[in-house]
């Protein structure tokens, strides 16, 4: 079955085709989401949301892009949405504590350890993941897709809907920003 036939099966509501889609792409979606939200439970929830959206909107998929490209786009969008929600919740909690409506939440320094990182690089990778949170969104997406998912610049350009040159520039700026941040790295002790 080629991709077109597979998409047609999905659009016709074939449950087996959907199961196959999930089982083929679940780790790709989860890994991408996890590298952005940096929390195992949140990544599982967001991954579920990704596939729920895919299930509900596959009928509208016109096949302009590859199925994997579309899945990456949905995964990145959902992960960034979850990040924004988390940040706005945090801002509201801070505001409430500031005006005396709630207690200030103690900020716990949580170092995210990506399960796929080699043991000897765990500490360095945790520092890198923390620094990545400060990157502008498009630099962060490019860096995550290329480094965490191991995608090529071409595939990343397709997913981000930009040129390969633009992806190269984003990667260059992301690395420069990370280097700058690491020069002034603060750690909780």
């Amino acid at each position, binding site marked *: 079955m080629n991709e077109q036939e597979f998409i047609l099966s999905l659009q016709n509501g074939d449950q087996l085709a959907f199961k196959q889609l999930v089982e083929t792409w*679940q*780790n790709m979606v989860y890994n991408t989401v996890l590298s952005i939200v940096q929390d195992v439970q949140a990544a599982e929830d967001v991954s579920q949301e990704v*596939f729920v959206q895919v299930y509900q909107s596959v009928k509208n998929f016109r096949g302009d892009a590859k199925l994997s490209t579309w899945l990456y786009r949905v995964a990145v969008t959902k992960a960034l949405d979850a990040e924004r929600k988390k940040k706005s919740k945090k801002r509201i909690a801070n505001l409430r504590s500031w005006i005396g409506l709630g207690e200030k939440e103690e900020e716990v320094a949580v170092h995210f350890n990506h*399960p796929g*990182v080699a043991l000897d690089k765990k500490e360095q990778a945790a*520092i890198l993941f923390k*620094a990545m949170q400060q990157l502008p969104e498009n630099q962060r997406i490019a860096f995550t897709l290329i480094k965490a998912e*191991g995608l090529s610049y071409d595939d990343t350009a397709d997913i981000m809907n930009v040129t390969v040159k633009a992806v190269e520039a984003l990667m260059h700026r992301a690395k420069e920003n990370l280097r700058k941040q690491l020069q002034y790295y*603060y750690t909780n*002790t």
Partner: protein
Amino acid sequence: MSMERRKFTQEEIEKIVQSMDGVNRAEIAPFFYTRLQAKIDSASSPSNTIWSVIMKPAVSLVTLSLLLILNIAAIRYYSKTSKQTTSEKSSPIQKFAEEYDLSASPAYNDKTANP
């Protein structure tokens, strides 16, 4: 908890930036499809869909505003018709009085009448 500035050498910084090179893909917990299926079922159940629509703040606000407008309109309409009914109730009596000229003074009381 206190914040401590940590100074990295250029070599350390490069190692950190490259620490994700060759990372393996993280794997999701087993039985993901089963958990997903449960979520899809609950999301597509009709009662859930209706409630999710009803519980939207915008929908609630519009419904409340409509109810308020309807109530005000009903009260105004009721008070208007009750006034009309009162006036309509008195009108047949007035008509009767006009018809039989009851509003005119009786003849025995009429001081102007000649004996």
